[in-house]
């Protein structure tokens, strides 16, 4: 009995894993930027009372929140090429799926954050003569973002975890490289253990930071202003 653990072959392929890690970071960065910025746009559209803005934004959010992200990625990879005249690379498909999914979720965070600001803040900025846009940019958003910070950090962590799904369309990231090494060396235990630990060690500090932010928000909220 007793499995003989041997991590040496994993570390022999450290360069391959590192290459994968770079791929993970690349798609994470792309999806984080696209997801959150598009999410802000959609969130503002959702907040708007104009039907022409509100309606499509709502449909977008509902659709992307209520379908699995892996289905979205596969749709972009296998289905979309039928409709567009150019190649869809694994990175494009995965980044599209993850970014749009994250945009839908963060849109709700942005909308909720904006709605949570007391009407008095709007009134005070309008009373100073600010336009709606100025009030939003200078007064409302800065306060809302502070409140949303824990939820947004949480979203970022989710995006990082989702990046592994890109391996399903053979995008080269950490898990994909792990698969490769495991199949070459027949050592799935060590490889997947190392990868799981790598994700945990990288993400857990972020998770703790989110907890700390949440606590800080809870304190400053109960302290009143």
């Amino acid at each position: 009995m007793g499995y003989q653990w041997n991590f040496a072959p994993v570390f022999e392929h450290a360069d391959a894993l590192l290459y994968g890690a770079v791929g993970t970071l690349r798609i994470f960065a792309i999806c984080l930027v696209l997801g959150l910025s598009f999410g802000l746009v959609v969130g503002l559209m959702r907040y708007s009372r104009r039907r022409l803005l509100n309606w499509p934004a709502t449909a977008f959010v509902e659709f992307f929140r209520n379908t699995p992200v892996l289905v979205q990625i596969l749709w972009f990879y296998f289905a979309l090429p039928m409709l567009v005249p150019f190649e869809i690379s694994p990175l494009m498909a995965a980044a599209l799926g993850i970014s749009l999914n994250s945009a839908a979720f963060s849109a709700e965070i942005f909308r909720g954050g904006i709605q949570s600001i007391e009407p008095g803040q709007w009134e005070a900025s309008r009373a100073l003569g600010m336009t709606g846009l100025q009030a939003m940019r200078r007064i409302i958003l800065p306060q809302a973002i502070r409140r949303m910070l824990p939820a947004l950090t949480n979203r970022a962590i989710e995006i990082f975890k989702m990046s592994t799904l890109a391996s399903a369309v053979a995008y080269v990231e950490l898990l994909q490289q792990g698969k490769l090494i495991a199949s070459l060396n027949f050592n799935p235990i060590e490889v997947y253990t190392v990868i799981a630990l790598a994700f945990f060690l990288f993400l857990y500090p972020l998770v703790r930071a989110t907890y700390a932010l949440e606590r800080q928000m809870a304190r400053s909220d109960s302290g009143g202003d």
Partner: protein
Amino acid sequence: MYRWDFAPVLANADLLLQGLVNTLAVTGTALAFGIPLGLALALARLSGRRLLAWPAGFVIEFFRTTPPLVQLFWFFFALPVLIRVEMTPFMASALTFSIQSSAFFAEVFRGGIVSVERGQWEASRALGMTPSQSMRRIILPQAVKRMIPAFMERAIELMKTTTLVAIVSYADLLYQANEIAQKTFRPLEVFTVVAGIYFVVILMISLLARRLERRLAVSGESTVH
């Protein structure tokens, strides 16, 4: 201009149905094990005994922080080698998502339990109840009611996450879609229909959840005193 043709999808409706049944089976199994396990983890974490709280905390944090696909690979490829048992895709999937969802349910339970006012503990303890009687009779019934929205949200997330099982060739809805797409050369129609199926099923569950919440909110037995 692309010519849509849904006939090949319809011709394989039985496969899709079978896939949907399998998706529901793995979701249901994970819920059936994940909820009680989550309650146990939450109680252990809240027990105040380090020997219980610490390992429970680690399991919860680890499974919430690492990507589910990495977990699934570990349980599917690594665990069978480690404990020398055959692991079917269903077993690996059910195991992974039972534990993964239990980590999330544990936090839902914990949040619900700590949200119950201290006075409720005190009143039950003042009557002479033991801590476990207080928990069972007074705290949990109130906590569970408050947890229902978070609970439904987690269940829906779980259902979406189970699409990952397709990657280890468990014949869920997404897996069937991929098969049919390859067979019929109609990926656009197949993946669009499957995305639609997920959307409808998940939306229905969301709507049901919202109805349930409203029903509970208007019932005379409210949580305010």
